[in-house]
């Protein structure tokens, strides 16, 4: 009877152990350094790119473009617990600080957090500040938000939960912090890897369901529509017979990403193709922030060599 029960439980235990082994591989913190520096660069550029429009985008009605009340009302309708710039402004008001000053301080805080992340100084507090201020801005922006913002929020969300600091950071040099648990480092890299697989699979599948990706017309339309029209249509139309091939290739590249990115033989090819696709999106459509955040996520998830062997893991860090 006891033997029978063991036999029945074994496959479940095996599956669970396989799942845990997949979730918690041994990993060095090199990928985390790439992730931190990349996200730091992204946050810094985000703040610099929006420098001249920051107040205009997020000011109250009558002073800004559309006023942040509308975006905040839509966000509050979803849930009143989602952070927004109004929270910071209410706190500022209690200290008799004007709305304009609070918005400027939020921008400065975001820029400083980005620079701190780049250097690896106060890494976790910087990641938390960057996540919070960026989330406030994204939620108050409401209808002004686009894909790059969502990926930035996700990247910052994961970064602040990751086992920071890495040993390339100033934190490590200054405070001589201990090496982090390689299983924890492996877990957070897995989260990033699995997330990207879902992103590309869903994106590729949805594109394949549109007729315009089969005949190249979607590529044409996306490259000539303002404000993405950096390439002249006269030049683009010369490649009219290449566009259908490129359109189908993009769909297949994205949809098969969750398979071929895991295979050692095809990983490099898929990674290079995906990075090239994002670089092209950035350069040809002017979606610089979107391209950069996707390149950073891919490099951190699959660009850094992995995984390390048990023997290479820092001593005393193996979880028994």
């Amino acid at each position, binding site marked *: 009877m006891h033997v029978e029960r063991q036999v029945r439980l074994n496959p479940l235990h095996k599956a669970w152990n396989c799942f845990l082994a997949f979730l918690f591989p041994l990993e060095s913190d090199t990928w985390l350094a790439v992730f931190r520096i990349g996200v730091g660069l992204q946050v810094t550029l985000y703040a610099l790119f929006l420098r001249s429009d920051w107040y205009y985008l997020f000011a109250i009605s009558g002073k800004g473009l559309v006023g942040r009340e509308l975006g905040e009302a839509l966000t509050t309708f979803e849930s009143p617990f989602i952070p927004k710039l109004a929270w910071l402004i209410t706190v500022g008001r209690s200290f008799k600080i004007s709305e304009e000053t609070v918005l400027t301080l939020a921008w400065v805080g975001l820029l400083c957090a980005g620079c701190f992340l780049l250097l690896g100084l106060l890494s976790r507090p910087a990641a938390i500040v960057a996540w919070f201020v960026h989330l406030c801005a994204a939620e108050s922006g409401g209808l002004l938000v686009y894909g790059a913002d*969502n990926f930035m929020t996700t990247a910052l969300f994961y970064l602040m939960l990751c086992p920071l600091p890495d040993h390339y950071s100033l934190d490590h040099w200054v405070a001589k912090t201990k090496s982090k648990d390689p299983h924890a480092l492996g877990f957070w890299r897995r989260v990033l890897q699995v997330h990207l697989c*879902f992103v590309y699979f869903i994106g590729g599948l949805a594109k394949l369901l549109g007729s315009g990706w089969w005949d190249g017309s979607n590529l044409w339309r996306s490259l000539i529509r303002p404000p993405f029209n950096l390439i002249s249509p006269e030049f683009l139309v010369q490649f009219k017979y290449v566009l259908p091939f490129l359109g189908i290739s993009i769909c297949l590249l994205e949809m098969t990403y969750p398979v071929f990115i895991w295979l050692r033989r095809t990983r490099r090819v898929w990674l290079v193709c995906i990075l090239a696709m994002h670089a092209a999106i950035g350069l040809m459509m002017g979606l610089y922030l979107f391209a950069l955040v996707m390149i950073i996520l891919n490099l951190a998830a699959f660009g850094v060599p992995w995984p390390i062997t048990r023997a290479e893991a820092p001593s005393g860090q193996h979880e028994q």
Partner: protein
Amino acid sequence: MLLKRIQAAWFGIHFFLVIAVSFAGLFWLIAERSTILPSAWDNYARKAELVASWCLGKEAGASNPVRLTIATYLHAAGIQAGYTFFAPNVPNPHRLTLQLFYQDGRIEYESPRVHGRAAALRLDTLLDRLAEERYEPVREAVVKRLAFSVWREHPEVKKIRATFGSVNPPDMNEFEQGKTEIFQPMFSFDFSLRDEEQQ
């Protein structure tokens, strides 16, 4: 080991939500007949979208704690929107033209403006969203604010007529034949800004 179990459980819940959000968006596209799938799939897609929405707590009351918790988490993690960018097809761009009527009878044309390219991308995102049916209730309020942002630079303007529409670009063959984009107005609003000022 306990920490590992907690992390594994979080992993499961987190990616369950990512899948639910992504597939809710995908099923919505199918149900709206935006894809190449036959119309026989519409009903199934609509039901599947409801299931995905139920998983996200969207079928619960607005103040339901489960719904609020899930919504807050989705926004905090940046996973509240699916990943169907430029899919299944690239939508037409949209344009908002503001016709400025001056007191002396002059008429000028303007568009809402921002300084940097990063902000310009956001403004275009806003205009594309205004065309969506789900944002119909806020359309007038947004257009009014955009018109007001232009009026601040032209305070002598008496009235603004805001015309919003879709821009149909030519396809590759039409472009080779010399055809250009066609502007199709969708709606327009008149704002009397002297009244606005008095308010």
